């Protein structure tokens, strides 16, 4: 049935193309992709069971039809036709509706959208935070990361893809107040099974008063909640979050100071569940921004305070599902033990990602990020952050420095608080500014992050000391006329010990587990890319991934990957 609908949609779309060209009311949009992976596994241990070489890939087309029946309405439907390599005569071919929405403007004032919506509010109420480690990957790895993000509807503006309805409008004033903006969204997070699972909705709204470019004040209310009566289950989940935010700006010539603040409260409760706790938490954040656009300098000083029981499904839901098993080489070794997922897997496995809001704190991997596993809204964190950016057009380099000095608000299992330190450097050196043709894309990308989690031991309680160092250097060098050579070396090194909280179904800590790691993940990659134009590229690259785990030698292996990748957007 699903395939039939998709085929009819496709047929209808193609028949309308000529119509579109005549009156410009119908447009085709979308993209096409060809992706091939050739993998080879090398292990230190003898393995006569696992097949070492695998090949896989696919070709897909995302075909969207945008219809504008009038000046104020747009309808878009996009279907995905995917054929995995090796699938002939229809086997291995899948048809999916990728997105469908109607949007428009009512009376030239109220914008609305129905269906698939990309939406965000503040980082404590509704925001899709970046995934660990690979978000800072260099260009050669970003090609794969972009595929992940595109397939999972993760966009650069950190919106969540939701299905529902949204409405935005504003009222402008002549005196005292410049504008009052109103935003609202309701989406369905979970559907009822008509038995024991209730329908779950996410609703949020924002009212923002903009007095001028120097002062604004806003309120955000967000709620993830079950609808009673949509199943036989009387227990309903509710997670209301309320925040107030404001900006005060001061400008003198090119110098601009902005004081931004957001504070709020959250609650989690399960109605009709007598044994369930009610979790209440507060947050507070103040940031002082300085910018000088003429000199390309931006800096900020931030103070953050998020209580341990602050819960916000819209802001704390993670992209990566760390409970997922890798699809490639799921089991290795003669004993076919489970292979632990690595950054290589998270760079290319769509199924390891989550697309829907989670009512509870999801699993995370401390070796990749033990400081901000749930983004800015990570509960039980307080402290300061200093960030300095330098980026200027035609400058020989850009720089971003970040220093986090955080600690827990409340100890876990002890009154002594864990301390968190993050030092991060992102730098780009634009070689084209030093020699050769300045229009060529020639850049060296440098990334370094050092995460430290510490807590002193007391009596017989062992001390916590977990470090993660991520370092990479990459080169993107345009040899000639859109033909780029790409190279990169990256290492994630983690070592140490932590006591991790084990939480119950209500996200409350009921025990601790010892977490000990000592290993590194190394990637070396060399590739070439030809950019036909801004919307079309062809890439080939060879990557060597090495996993070294000192404490679990069975996880020591190397995967060599050959990737062919063609992308066309239209």
């Amino acid at each position, binding site marked *: 049935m699903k395939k039939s609908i998709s085929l009819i949609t496709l047929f209808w779309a193609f028949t309308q193309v000529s119509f579109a060209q005549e009156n410009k009311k119908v447009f085709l949009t979308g993209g096409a992709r060809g992706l091939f992976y050739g993998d080879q596994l090398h292990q230190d241990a003898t393995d006569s069971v696992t097949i070492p070489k695998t090949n896989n890939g696919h070709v897909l087309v995302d075909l969207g039809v945008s219809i504008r029946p009038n000046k104020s309405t747009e309808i878009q439907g996009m279907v995905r036709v995917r054929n995995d390599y090796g699938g002939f005569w229809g086997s291995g071919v899948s048809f999916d509706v990728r997105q469908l929405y109607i949007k428009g403007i009512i009376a030239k004032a109220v914008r609305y959208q129905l269906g698939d919506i990309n939406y965000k509010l503040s980082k404590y109420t509704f925001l899709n935070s970046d995934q660990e480690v690979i978000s800072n990957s260099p260009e050669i790895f970003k090609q794969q990361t972009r595929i992940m993000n595109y397939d999972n509807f993760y966009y650069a503006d950190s919106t969540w893809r939701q299905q529902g309805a949204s409405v935005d409008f504003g009222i402008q004033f002549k005196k005292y107040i410049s504008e009052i903006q109103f935003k609202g969204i309701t989406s369905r997070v979970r559907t009822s099974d008509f038995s024991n699972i209730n329908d779950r909705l996410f609703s949020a709204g924002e009212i923002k008063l903009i007095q001028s470019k120097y002062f604004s004040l806003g309120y955000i209310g967000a709620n993830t909640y079950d609808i009673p009566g949509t199943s036989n289950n009387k227990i309903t989940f509710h997670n209301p979050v309320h925040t107030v935010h404001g900006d005060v700006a001061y400008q003198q010539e090119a110098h601009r100071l902005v004081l931004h603040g957001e504070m709020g409260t959250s609650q989690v409760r399960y109605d009709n569940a007598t044994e369930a706790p009610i979790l209440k938490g507060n947050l507070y954040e103040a940031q002082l921004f300085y910018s000088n656009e003429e000199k390309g300098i931006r800096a900020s000083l931030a103070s953050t305070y998020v209580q341990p029981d602050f819960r916000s499904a819209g802001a704390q839901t993670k992209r990566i599902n760390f409970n997922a098993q890798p699809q490639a080489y799921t089991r290795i070794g003669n004993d076919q033990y489970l292979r632990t997922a690595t950054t290589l897997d998270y760079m290319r496995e769509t199924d390891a990602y989550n697309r829907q809001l989670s009512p509870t704190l999801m699993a995370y991997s401390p070796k990749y990020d033990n400081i901000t596993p749930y983004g800015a809204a990570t509960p039980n964190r307080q402290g300061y952050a200093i960030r300095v950016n330098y980026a200027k057009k035609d400058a020989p380099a850009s720089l971003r420095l970040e220093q986090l000095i955080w600690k827990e608000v409340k100890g876990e*299992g002890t*009154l002594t608080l864990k301390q968190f330190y993050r030092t991060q450097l992102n730098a780009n050196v634009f070689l084209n500014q030093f020699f050769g043709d300045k229009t060529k894309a020639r850049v060296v990308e440098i990334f370094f992050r050092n995460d430290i989690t510490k807590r002193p031991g007391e009596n017989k309680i062992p001390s916590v000391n977990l470090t993660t160092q991520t370092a990479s250097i990459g080169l993107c060098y345009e040899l000639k006329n859109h033909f780029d050579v790409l190279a990169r070396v990256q290492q994630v090194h983690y070592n140490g010990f932590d006591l991790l909280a084990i939480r119950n179904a209500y996200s*409350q800590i009921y025990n601790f587990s010892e977490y000990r790691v000592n290993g590194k993940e190394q990637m070396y990659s060399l590739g070439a890319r030809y950019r036909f134009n801004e919307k079309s590229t062809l890439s080939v690259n060879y990557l060597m991934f090495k996993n070294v785990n000192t404490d679990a030698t069975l996880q020591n292996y190397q995967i060599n990957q050959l990737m062919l990748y063609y992308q066309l957007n239209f």
Partner: protein
Amino acid sequence: MKKYLILSAALSLVFWGCKKENTFDGPSLNDMYGDFAIVHGLDISNRDVDFGAGQTTYFTAEFTKNVNWQLTITGLSSGAVKQLNGFSNVLNVSNALWNGTTTHLPMFRAEDCAVALSIANVADTLRDTLTVAGTRINNGFVLADFESGMNPGWVPFIQSGANMNFAVQTGSGAAQGSRFYNMAGAVSWDWLIGMIDMPASAYGSAHMPLTSNAANLYFNSMIYKPAGVTNGLVLLQFREDDNGDGAFSEGTEDMYSIQVSLMTDGWNQVSQRYEDIPTLVNGSAAGALGNGLHEPDKLLKVSVLFLANPSSGYSQSAIDYLIFTEDAPLQP
């Protein structure tokens, strides 16, 4: 000057945030990793406690970390056992208070008791003793405790079978006090071995002196099963005078019944809310025989029947401390 003031105010706001809480989340890590040691040994607040006078006693101890502990008080004469359990690093009035109740029957008497505090994963047991000077008083209408022998108003019936022994016995085996009613024998021609009728007249009134609120009234009894005897049944019958004529009319007025199959060796407590006592016909639930209303204030007679399959041979049981309580089942 103005811009410095603004900047100072802004910075103050930024640095305003950090706070510290003086509690922690989750279980104490000290419980996982800390060494166990006794800070203060076992002590007893009242070593000569008279529960009958409303006294209580509590136990104290302190350890270096939270542990699973069990405090066992054993009556040296009765064999009654009271157990208190907890997970904490301290025993005090809030978690180790004893009001004279019993965990495993029989009930405590006025006697000396041994106290033992055992701790999970710790080999040593802390021991002490105390004296129960007086037992606790249970509020309610005592139908029978046999401490004064048989009530002359009761009507016993005993079959002429073999090895018949229906009598009040004295000794350490009573569930409460020092006496209980033994029921034993073998009757090859009938399920009934013996019985006692306890009419309201035996207590000097036309109906049992009970509340009219059946939802708030509980019937409690101690029933004994000897080891190795598996064929006995105890049937408790409650006859009501629905029409208030002072007599029970068979088949037209309500008779509720509790049938107890003797399963666990030793004394067992049977407690049931009066409103929930069913009508039984030959051991099976049946429709009401009278007005179907549970009216304890019209209770005319309580009968205790000891039954066994006639082909199963000798059987034995005993009863003690039949008491009606209000608000809650008996806490022995």
